[in-house]
C-alpha cells in the first residue's frame, strides 16, 4: 500500500501566494511515501515545503521553474506500476490526448502524469492511463482563468491503483475516487 501524491502547477509566488488552507491542513508529513510534481513550483521554498512532507520527491521542469536543473521527463517504478512524469508544455497541442499517448509510449509507462493545462483529467487509452492533477493553488493557466485547485493522491496496491482526486469547489473539498487495475500481461487489453 503505497501512497503517491501527484501535484503541480502551483506557480508560487507569481500567480498564487500559497496552497489553499484546506489543502494545507490535509497534507501532513508521515502519510505519503512519494511525491511526484509536474512542475512550475516555482521557487525553492515550495520545493522545501514539499520535501518536508515526504523525502522522496520527484520534480520535472515547468517553463516557469526557477531551478533549471529539474529534468524534462522522469520515470519511476512504484510497486507493479511504471510512472512517467512530464510537465506537459513540451507536448503540443497542450493537453491533447493523442500526443500525450505518444509521449507515454515513448517513455513506456503505465501511468503518465502531466500538467500545464491546470485542469484535472484522468484518461484511459490502450497504452495506459494519463492523469493530470491540475493546479494545486488554482493559479490561472496559459489557456484559462477558470481554475479549481486540485491535486491527486494515488494508492498503489499490487496491480490495483485507487486514485483519489481532491478538488476545491466553492470553498469545499470534494473527493472523488477512481479505481483501475493493471492487466497482468501488457499486451492483452481487458477489463478485470
Amino acid at each position, binding site marked *: 500500500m503505497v501512497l503517491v501524491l501527484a501535484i503541480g502547477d502551483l506557480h508560487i509566488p507569481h500567480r498564487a501566494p500559497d496552497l489553499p488552507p484546506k489543502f494545507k491542513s490535509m497534507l501532513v508529513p508521515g*502519510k505519503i511515501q512519494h511525491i511526484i510534481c509536474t512542475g512550475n513550483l516555482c521557487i525553492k521554498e515550495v520545493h522545501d515545503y514539499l520535501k518536508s512532507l515526504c523525502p522522496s520527491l520527484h520534480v520535472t521542469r515547468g517553463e516557469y521553474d526557477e531551478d533549471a536543473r529539474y529534468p524534462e521527463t522522469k520515470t519511476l517504478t512504484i510497486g507493479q506500476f511504471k510512472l512517467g512524469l512530464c510537465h506537459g508544455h513540451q507536448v503540443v497541442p497542450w493537453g491533447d490526448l493523442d500526443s500525450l499517448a505518444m509521449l507515454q509510449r515513448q517513455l513506456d509507462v503505465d501511468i503518465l502524469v502531466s500538467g500545464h493545462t491546470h485542469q484535472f483529467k484522468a484518461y*484511459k*487509452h490502450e497504452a495506459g492511463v494519463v492523469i493530470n492533477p491540475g493546479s494545486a493553488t488554482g493559479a490561472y493557466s496559459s489557456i484559462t482563468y477558470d481554475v479549481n485547485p486540485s491535486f491527486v493522491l494515488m*494508492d498503489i496496491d499490487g496491480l490495483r491503483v485507487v486514485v483519489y482526486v481532491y478538488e476545491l469547489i466553492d470553498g469545499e473539498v*470534494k*473527493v472523488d475516487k*477512481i*479505481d483501475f487495475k493493471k492487466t497482468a500481461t501488457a499486451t492483452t487489453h481487458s477489463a478485470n
Partner: protein
Amino acid sequence: MLRGKLKLPEKARRAFPDRLGSIVAGFNEKDEENRGLNHGFELGEELETFQPNGFGLDRELDDYKVEDEKSDGELGFRAPQKPDRDGADSVSFSDVFAADEKRSDLEYEFSQKEINLEKLQRVASSGLPDGGGLRATAWKVIISSSFAHLQLLLGYLPASRDLWEKELIENQSKYAKLKEELLLSPSQFSKREDEPLRSNKQYAGSDADGQLARHDVSTDDHPLCLGQASVWHQYFQFTEILEQIDRDLLRTHPDMKFFSSNSSLSRKNREAMRNILLLFAKLNPVIRYVQGMNEVLAPLYYVFSTDADEKNAANAEADSFACFVRLLSDSVDHFCEQLDNSSVGIHSTLSRLLGLLKANDEELWRHLELTNKVNPQFYAFRWITLLLTQEFDLHSILRIWDCLLSNPFGVQEMLLRVCCAMLLCVKTNLLSGDFVDNLKLLQHYPKINIEHLLQVAQDISPDTSSFCLSP
C-alpha cells in the same frame, strides 16, 4: 561395587560416576526407556533441579551450564539430538529417574479428564522439563486457570481436558477475526468494500477508452481524511506505535537466532509477535504499547512455538496472544502512569516489596532503605513490570516463570517473593557496598544458581505487617 556383577552395558557404565553406582537396581530398563523417549531431556536442566539436594554434582553442573549457554540458540531443537551428545551421558541415575518421573507425572496429569491444577502447579514449581510440549501445555493451563477466579470458563484452557480442543479452535478463530478487523491495511479494507460495486457497474464500460469514471467519496473515507471514524486516520495513528514495536522486536534477545536473525523463520516470528503486540495496543487504548512488552511476550511465544506437537506450534500466535493478554491483565496497572501513586500502581507494589524485605531481613532492609537510600524504583521497577525477563537469560527465565506460574495465589505474589529472594541472595555484596556499588549490582544482577534463588523465594515468609494481604 555392584557394577562388575551386573554387567552393565558400556554406555551405562560411562553414564554413572562411581560414587553413585550402587543405585542400579532395575537400571537397565530405565536406560532403555530413556533412550526410547522421544522427548529426551535437558540434562543441564535436571542437574540444576537437584543441586540443593546436594548430590555433589557441582563439577558437572558447571560443564552443563557452559553447554547450555552455547546451545541456547537451539534450545527448541535440542530434544531430537539429545541421545547423540557425548557429554550428556555422565549424569546421575537419580536425576534421570526423577526427571523421568516428573515427565511421566505431567503426561499422566494431562491425560486425565480433569486436571488437578494444584498438582500441576506443584510440579511446575520444581521446574518443568524442556522439550516436548509439556511446558507449553502446562503454561497454557495454569495461565488460564489462575485468571479464572470469577468463572471457570474464563480460562483459556479449562482444567477439563475434553474442552481443550474446542477451546483452542474457538480461540484461534476469534484471534483470526480480530486480526482481520483491526490489522487490515486501509487499501485492503477499501478493496473489500468495492467488491460488490465492481461487479455491477464499474467495469462494464471501462473496456472503452476515454474518461475514467469518478465516484464521489467526499463524505466517505479517503487517505487524507482527518475524521476519527476514518479507517485511514486510525491507520496512521498507529504508524508511530508500529515503528516503536518494530524497533523493539529487533532488539529482543539479539543473541538468539529464533528472534533476531535474518532468516525467513525468524522474520516470521517477529511478524507474529508484531501482530500480537499491535493487536494488544489497539485493544487497549489506555496503555497502548509500552517498551518492554516485547520482552514479556518473547518467552511465551518461544515456548508455544517450539512445542513438539506440530498443530500446537502452528497456532502459537493465537495462543500466545491469549496468554499474553491474561498475563498482562494482572500487571497492566503498573504500566499506566496515572495509577502510579494509587493503591494498585507501581509505587504501592514497590513498597510491598520493601515490606516483604523488612519482614524477612531487617538488617538488609535497613541498609538499603536508610543507610544507602537505594530507592527500589531504581532497580525493582524493571524487575516487576517486565516479570524479570531482562535480568536473566531465556533458559533461566523459563525456569523462573515455571515457578511464578506455580503459585496458587497468583503471579504477582510470587514475583515479589522472587524479587525479595534476589535481594537476599546478594546480601553480603550489598552490605559491603555503598550506594553506587549497590545500584550497579542490582541493575546488573549477577548470574546465580536459579534453583537456589527459587528455593529461597519459596521459603520467604509473607509480610503480615500491612493490612493489604495479596488477593
